């Protein structure tokens, strides 16, 4: 401290503390050494050392999504920043609040192709909500506060702050944060337009076949949004479906919940969407995995769309009543109107609607063939669900078949308990995300439902789990294939399994052992329960290698380019409904 001034690094840590940051996920390097030096001298902010910067961002995502706070990442310049890009894109797609601090070469070397220099703000511009390059230490505190505000408010997202080394070492006066954070050009709208809210509620009151279709926006809005949504849905008696990102916003065990919708959603959810007359979309964005063929998406419906991001409205699907605002705020407005008008849903029509839905439900679309000898992945998840029921548990996933099965077979009754890479579909997300969750909730059970292919993408993070004694449970549905790739090759490419077989897999038990964890194997259905029980007892990280049926496909499935009513319910269906050429080009 010179003349009451602080270094950039000291200011940075002060602002992190102000913003309520308890933990930073990071990896040191030349450009950020001043920050690591400042970290060393204090106790308020804890640092978790990951093993690759990509892991740091996913861990921060796990931390953020399970707590509702901003996840903070600290990486060095050049490769540190470029390794973070996938995680940043993931956080952007799934609207996760992240502040990512990247080191940079000193300002006088910027543009010189210096050692470990990369144009970080240039590279991260399209994969962040906003980014900054701080060139003057006097701007640092203001920029940091603004970054937190931008990351957490409105539609949350990742914000990068690029910090040249001379700025971190420079001196500036530090002043505490102003009382209210404001921004001259960025002011997200929280309250929905009253007229639109009234029209939406009036429309819902006249509906004969209404449905709530809700997404990750409800989770992002905070636990109050889930509470209000549950209240409103129960009050109206209307069926509700959640997107992949929205699971947990409404209790999955409730009768009004018809399951996830979309490509691998339930038959009843997709048919209810197809046949509905009024759709209330809350905090979801009509993603292509949800809508299927746009031209045949809920063709008979009037659509209400509540979203805090105006650019989500009318992007993929034209809606009748758009409402820009925060989910919790707008839901409260809607309920107030509903009560004031003493509205009641049309009981007769609703009873008939439920009869249809129960009919679709009767198809039992998640049924699978049970065999005595081979473990079906669905069976493993059913057992995982049964044996963790009622526990304080968080689930993360990697990406692929196991992710879809987890979404189908695990039941989420509370928000913030389910963490998955929905938008970007990042294999390798689940383990570091689970680490982030476990750091935030040391006493909780944290399970990463994984595939044997995905888990290898960030397997180095086992070392992080070991160092911090994070007892995450990695539940691998091991079918020795990139299962979803194999499934598409079977369905779309004549069974030519090009490069989807996972040869030379490691011995996961030895692998766990070498990282000071525990490995368990289940090869028969009768061993699954024991492995799950054993896994939960161990206070270190565990890899449970569940050897599942290699040829099992994930159903139900809407083939790409098809409509909701064209679902394939099982293997027998697939030959009957060949996939169109149009569908073939879709991802």
């Amino acid at each position, binding site marked *: 401290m010179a003349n009451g001034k602080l270094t950039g690094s000291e200011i940075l840590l002060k602002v992190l503390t102000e913003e309520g940051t308890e933990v930073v996920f990071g990896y040191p390097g030349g450009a950020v050494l001043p920050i690591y030096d400042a970290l060393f001298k204090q106790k308020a902010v804890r640092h978790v050392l990951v093993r690759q910067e990509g892991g740091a961002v996913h861990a921060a995502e796990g931390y953020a999504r399970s707590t509702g706070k901003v996840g903070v990442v600290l990486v060095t310049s050049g490769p540190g920043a470029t390794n973070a890009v996938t995680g940043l894109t993931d956080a952007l797609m799934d609207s996760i609040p992240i502040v990512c601090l990247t080191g940079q070469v000193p300002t006088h070397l910027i543009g010189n192709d210096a050692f470990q220099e990369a144009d970080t*703000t*240039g590279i991260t*511009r*399209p994969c962040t*909500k*906003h*980014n900054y*390059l701080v060139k003057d230490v006097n701007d640092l505190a203001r920029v940091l506060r603004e970054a937190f505000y*931008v990351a957490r408010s409105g539609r949350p997202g990742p914000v990068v702050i690029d910090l040249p080394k001379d700025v971190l070492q420079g001196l500036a006066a530090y002043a505490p944060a102003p009382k209210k954070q404001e*921004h*001259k*050009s*960025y002011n997200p709208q929280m309250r929905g337009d009253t007229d639109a809210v009234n029209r939406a509620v009036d429309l819902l009151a006249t509906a004969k076949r209404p449905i709530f279709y809700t997404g990750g926006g409800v989770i992002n809005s905070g636990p109050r949004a889930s509470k209000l949504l549950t209240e409103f849905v129960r009050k109206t008696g209307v069926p509700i479906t959640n997107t992949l990102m929205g699971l947990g916003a409404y209790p999955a065990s409730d009768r009004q919940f018809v399951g996830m919708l979309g490509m691998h959603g339930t038959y009843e959810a997709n048919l209810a969407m197809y046949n509905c007359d009024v759709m209330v979309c809350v905090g979801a964005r009509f993603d292509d995995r949800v809508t299927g063929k*746009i031209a045949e998406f809920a063709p008979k419906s009037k659509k209400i769309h509540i979203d805090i*991001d*105006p*650019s989500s*409205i*009318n*992007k993929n699907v*034209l809606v009748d009543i758009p409402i820009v605002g925060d989910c919790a705020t707008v839901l409260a407005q809607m309920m107030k109107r509903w009560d004031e008008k003493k509205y009641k849903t049309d009981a007769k029509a609703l009873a008939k609607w439920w009869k249809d839905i129960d009919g679709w439900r009767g198809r039992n679309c998640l049924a699978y063939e049970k065999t005595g000898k081979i473990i079906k992945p669905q069976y493993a998840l059913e057992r995982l669900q049964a044996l963790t029921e009622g526990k304080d548990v968080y689930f993360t996933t990697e990406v692929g078949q196991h992710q879809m099965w987890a979404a189908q077979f695990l039941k989420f009754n509370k928000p913030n308990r389910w963490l998955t890479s929905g938008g970007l579909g990042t294999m390798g997300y689940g383990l570091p995300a689970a680490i982030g969750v476990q750091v935030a909730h040391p006493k909780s059970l944290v399970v990463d439902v994984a595939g044997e292919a995905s888990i290898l993408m960030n397997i180095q993070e086992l070392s992080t789990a070991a160092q911090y004694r994070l007892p995450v449970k990695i539940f691998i549905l091991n079918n020795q294939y990139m299962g979803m790739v194999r499934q598409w090759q079977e369905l779309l490419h004549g069974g030519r399994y090009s490069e989807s077989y996972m040869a030379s897999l490691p011995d996961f038990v030895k692998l766990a052992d070498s990282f000071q964890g525990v490995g368990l194997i289940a090869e028969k259905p009768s061993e699954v329960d024991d492995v799950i029980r054993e896994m939960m007892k161990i206070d270190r990280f565990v890899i449970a290698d569940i050897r599942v049926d290699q040829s099992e496909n994930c159903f139900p499935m809407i083939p790409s380019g098809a409509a909701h009513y064209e679902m394939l319910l099982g293997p027998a269906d697939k030959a009957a409904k060949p996939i169109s050429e149009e569908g073939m080009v879709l991802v």
Partner: protein
Amino acid sequence: MSDKSIERHVIAVLVDNEAGVLARVIGLFSGRGYNIESLTVAEVDAQKSLSRITIVTSGTPQIVEQIKAQLNRLVPVHRVSDLTEEGAHVARELALVKVRGSGEKRVESLRIADIFRAGVVDSTARSFVFEITGSTEKIDAFVRLMEPLGLVDISRTGIVAIARGEKPI
């Protein structure tokens, strides 16, 4: 995606004049596959450090709506105004046109410039640089006429535009 009719829109965007703001706007257009027919930018308020970007773009009504929503989402953007939709506006472009020649062609180029109210801003024994302001169509017409008269170089600003009437952006 039901309406496929392509419309041309002039959009004015008021932004903070900070590093990278133009890259954000351009990146948005290229990243999402939108068209840019022309784009101009300059600071308009030094005290508040505001710049104004005028973009001419085209797309279906749904795409144009998306473009405006996406522009509005950028953190340093203060205001997005669709001049085409919001009523009458004035749109102008400036061009500097270099014509090289001698004899009758040189005289003819001067005569046409006079008709178009283009001024001579540089002249040598063998060349003129004309300055012309007007609508895109007017400049296109002028350029076409200059082609056979020795047109060798041209620099255009792209459109700047402002709404008619007393209301600011």
